[in-house]
């Protein structure tokens, strides 16, 4: 059967089981939009800015555990995706990005709305394609989904010139497989590597696990718990690893890093064996590399061989999928117990809890996240932006289910919270709670219109202190209170919500906040909540930039 390129693309998306994708039309993708009506089972969500399409696909992917899909036109449409693609790339989120391009004979001639998007996205995609024939679409899309969702996941871009959408090619069904010689699946670890890791772990006296995004992505929460219990190893997570370990488990000690828990940082620093699982020993998690726990032996399990040994010398490297590796490792792990080591950490925790909740009636970040946790029974899916609100969200909410925590970790993209929460809402019925910074919210608030259009029950909880809070905190602590360009003013977010036909509420006291939570029970539409926070609260504890984990400070006096 002969079909146009546009129809072939849609047939491919249908074959991949794509339920929803996020896009914005423009000149060169009109042939594609012309066919969308024939594919009502594939819901197209019209965003109000292409950046939001990418973040929405990313948020959807992280919550659904499936590959997110977004679409933009050539030129500015495509370049507007770049921040969203990079965000997904840095956090290894599976995404297929579709872009239109100018007609083939105009490529390279600087035509209207031409941008070399495959060139631009070379360093921020796992792979990309520029398709010059309609017959290339089906195999390329098959490969794109395969590459995006296997190995270390990530975004793959497929760029299609306008006339390729129109050109006809033979369609004889979606390709069954791919043939990618340079891309073998490396899920299964080598036996000798597993054995060496087991030996190292069994001999450990003070072991610690640092679990990363890989645990969430390979859905290995169960295996991780079993491993921790069997070896009696306390578990820390990275920022992105949050929700990979149920935080109500007695072996869970929260997340480590720049604003990680004091006791988590100390535990990592004092362990004799550090077991990194599905993580990449990032600087924000590990502090100054040269002074991170120099005597620890490192066991590193990761799907990406390039991550192993990248930042630290590794004693026992294991290249493999986290779930696959843990299930092979488990039978070789001795039943062990480390009561002294655990009570040492427990003692640090008792002396240095993350509990910066001040007395009073005003709204503080830590108090508010705790209150939110209580109001939602700790069961909500939380999406955040980047900054103080993000760190409070990470510190004070008790995450127990995988994929309950969605944040931009690697790239640290402000403005992620609005569109990512919107996209994530398409993956579940229960309301998504988007913890927003007032700065980030203003970067992408145009999506309130999309949210309103689809009546999505997202709760946008703006942690509004009128400041670019984290930058202000740094200026206060490290630049002698020299505030510059951090006072954002305070627009009326309630009126803004109402302008979009969305329910807007405001809370300035703890009592009002509690009332808001009660009022929202059972409400199934979108809400914008302007939580007016104390303006100059800081996030503690903190590892100052360039310091070691052992130098974690708990207040400005420690500086």
């Amino acid at each position, binding site marked *: 059967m002969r079909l146009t390129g546009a129809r072939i693309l849609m047939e491919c998306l249908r074959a991949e089981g794509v339920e929803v994708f996020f896009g914005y039309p423009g000149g060169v993708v009109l042939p594609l939009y012309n066919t969308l009506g024939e594919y009502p089972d594939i819901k197209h969500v019209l965003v109000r800015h292409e950046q939001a399409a990418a973040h929405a696909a990313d948020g959807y992917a992280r919550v659904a555990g499936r590959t997110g899909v977004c679409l933009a036109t050539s030129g500015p449409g495509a370049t507007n995706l770049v921040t969203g693609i990079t965000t997904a790339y840095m956090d290894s989120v599976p995404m297929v990005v579709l872009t239109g391009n100018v007609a083939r004979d105009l490529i390279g001639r600087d035509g209207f709305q031409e941008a070399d998007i*495959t*060139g631009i996205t*070379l*360093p921020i995609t*796992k*792979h990309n394609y*520029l398709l010059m024939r309609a017959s290339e679409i089906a195999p390329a899309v098959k490969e794109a989904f395969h*590459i995006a969702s296997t190995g270390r996941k990530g975004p793959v871009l497929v760029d299609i010139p306008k006339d390729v959408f129109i050109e006809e090619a033979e369609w004889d069904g979606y390709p069954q497989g791919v*043939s*990618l*010689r*340079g*891309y*073998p*699946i*490396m899920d*299964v670890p*080598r036996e*000798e*590597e597993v054995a*060496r890791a087991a030996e190292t772990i069994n001999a450990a006296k003070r072991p610690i696990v640092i679990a990363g995004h890989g645990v969430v992505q390979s859905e290995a929460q169960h295996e991780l718990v079993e491993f921790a219990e069997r070896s009696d190893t306390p578990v820390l997570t990275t920022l992105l690893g949050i929700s990979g370990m149920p935080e109500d488990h007695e072996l869970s000690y929260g997340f480590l890093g720049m604003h990680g828990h004091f006791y988590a940082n100390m535990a990592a620093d004092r362990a004799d064996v550090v077991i990194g699982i599905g993580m990449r020993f990032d600087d924000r998690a590990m502090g100054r590399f040269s002074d991170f726990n120099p005597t620890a032996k490192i066991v590193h399990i990761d799907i*990406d*061989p*390039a991550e*192993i*040994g*990248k930042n630290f*010398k*590794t*004693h*026992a*490297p*294991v*290249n493999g999928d986290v779930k696959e590796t843990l299930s092979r490792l488990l039978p070789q792990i001795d039943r062990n117990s480390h009561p002294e080591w655990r009570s040492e950490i427990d003692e640090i925790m008792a002396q240095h809890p993350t509990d910066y909740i001040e007395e009073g009636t005003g709204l503080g970040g830590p108090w508010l996240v705790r209150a939110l946790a209580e109001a939602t029974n700790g069961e909500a899916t939380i999406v955040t932006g980047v900054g103080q609100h993000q760190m409070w969200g990470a510190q004070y909410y008790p995450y127990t289910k995988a994929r309950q925590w969605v944040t931009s970790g690697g790239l640290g993209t402000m403005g992620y919270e609005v569109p990512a929460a919107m996209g994530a809402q398409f993956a579940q019925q229960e309301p998504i709670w988007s913890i927003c910074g007032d700065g980030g919210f203003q970067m992408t608030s145009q999506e309130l219109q999309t949210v309103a259009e689809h009546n999505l029950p997202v709760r946008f909880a703006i942690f509004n202190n009128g400041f670019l809070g984290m930058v202000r905190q740094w200026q206060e602590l490290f630049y002698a209170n020299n505030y510059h360009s951090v006072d954002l003013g305070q627009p009326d977010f309630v009126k803004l919500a109402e302008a979009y036909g969305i329910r807007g509420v405001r809370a300035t006291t703890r009592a009002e906040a509690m009332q808001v939570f009660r009022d929202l029970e059972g409400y199934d539409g979108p809400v914008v909540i302007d939580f007016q926070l104390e303006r100059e609260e800081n996030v503690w504890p903190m590892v100052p930039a360039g310091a070691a984990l052992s130098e974690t400070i708990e207040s400005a006096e420690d500086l």
Partner: protein
Amino acid sequence: MASRNTIVAHVEDRPGVLARVASLFRRRGFNIESLTVGHCEEPGLSRMTIVVDGDDHQVDQVCRQLFKLIDVVSVQDITYAPMVDRELALIKVSASNFNRREVLDMVEMFRADVVDVDADALIVQVLGDEGKVDAAVKMFEQFGILEMVRTGRVAMVRGTETTKPPAISDSQQAAAAIRAMLGRRPEGALPFASD
């Protein structure tokens, strides 16, 4: 210690593959001394010889990052393997009736070839390892070098061993072969160990 390392990569012969490799080197801050690319014994694949500056750890990273490119089929670091490496240089040397004989003597000493003659210049073709080419360039400088081009290193492992990528369709075996290729200690049981 930084040194010059030789990496052989087989890549899919597709548009843009050189840009992908170059982009990766630029982004990761790896230093390319030279990169040569051309056809090899297998249609559809190109073979790159890449000379990079860096210590063991950096070169290890280069190989691993390179292999992550989908179009890169295999990567091998042959720095420590017994190998033959060659470079070709074309050197346009100033030579007139007064000194042509001296230039030709030098050509002979390096077992080089004269590939073009003009009243005031010669093009000399020098073939050898980089040390030899360096030495030749140095000696020809006294006559005046008008223009020069060097190809950069091409290299091949000695004996029956090859750097050819495994022709394996089974993904497990392919993964094993690739893991065996990566890493700088070919004799070690644990190619990914870095301590």
